[in-house]
């Protein structure tokens, strides 16, 4: 089971801050994950497809779309950061 977290505008699109999913073994990369989510929920898929939405796996930012997310227990979708 993987916990998927949504922050900022992706939380609005998901309708919740987190969801627990059984991610199929064939989903190996960030790109695979975005496509898999889009296939299940096209609206959410569109919201997380934007290039400025970064992905973190177990609190480490994935540097590219090919980065592996296999085995991660927590995956976060993060729009541009904006503190202060």
């Amino acid at each position: 089971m993987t916990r998927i977290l949504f922050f900022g505008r992706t939380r609005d699109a998901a309708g919740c801050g987190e969801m627990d999913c059984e991610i199929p073994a064939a989903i190996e990369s960030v790109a695979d994950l975005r496509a898999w989510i889009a296939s299940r929920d096209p609206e959410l898929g569109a919201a997380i497809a934007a290039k400025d939405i970064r992905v973190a796996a177990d609190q480490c930012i994935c540097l590219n779309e090919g980065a592996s997310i296999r085995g991660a227990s927590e995956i976060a979708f993060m729009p541009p950061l904006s503190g202060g």
Partner: protein
Amino acid sequence: MRAFSGERDGEAGALASFVGYCRTESPNGPVNQLELDHYPGFTEKEVSRLAHSVAMRHNLLDLLVIHRIGVIPANDPVVLVAALSSHRAEAFAATVEMMDYLKTDAPFWKRETGPDGSRWIEPTAADYARRSEHSK
């Protein structure tokens, strides 16, 4: 930071601080409140990492960062940064740099709410330009 209460060691010659407030007006119109979303665990880790790099680069004696989360009413303080150093130049520079990092590199997401509804606020081109003036 004990320096605020006057407990400084002999090396400390400068304490610079910055407080950011939630304005009542933004370019989008009147503002009633901000909502600061964060990623528990990751946000603390990243802010600590950024603060450590700023403190090292400017030879600080101490650096304090307090950032609120959740709902923040207009006029309330949002963030405090305070830098303690031997000389004023380092304290001023570190305070500015830490704020520039918080604007673009710290895991917070900010939603502004006014009479016309809510919108997520993301860094501006000016914020990124200021951030890029500092090396990591």
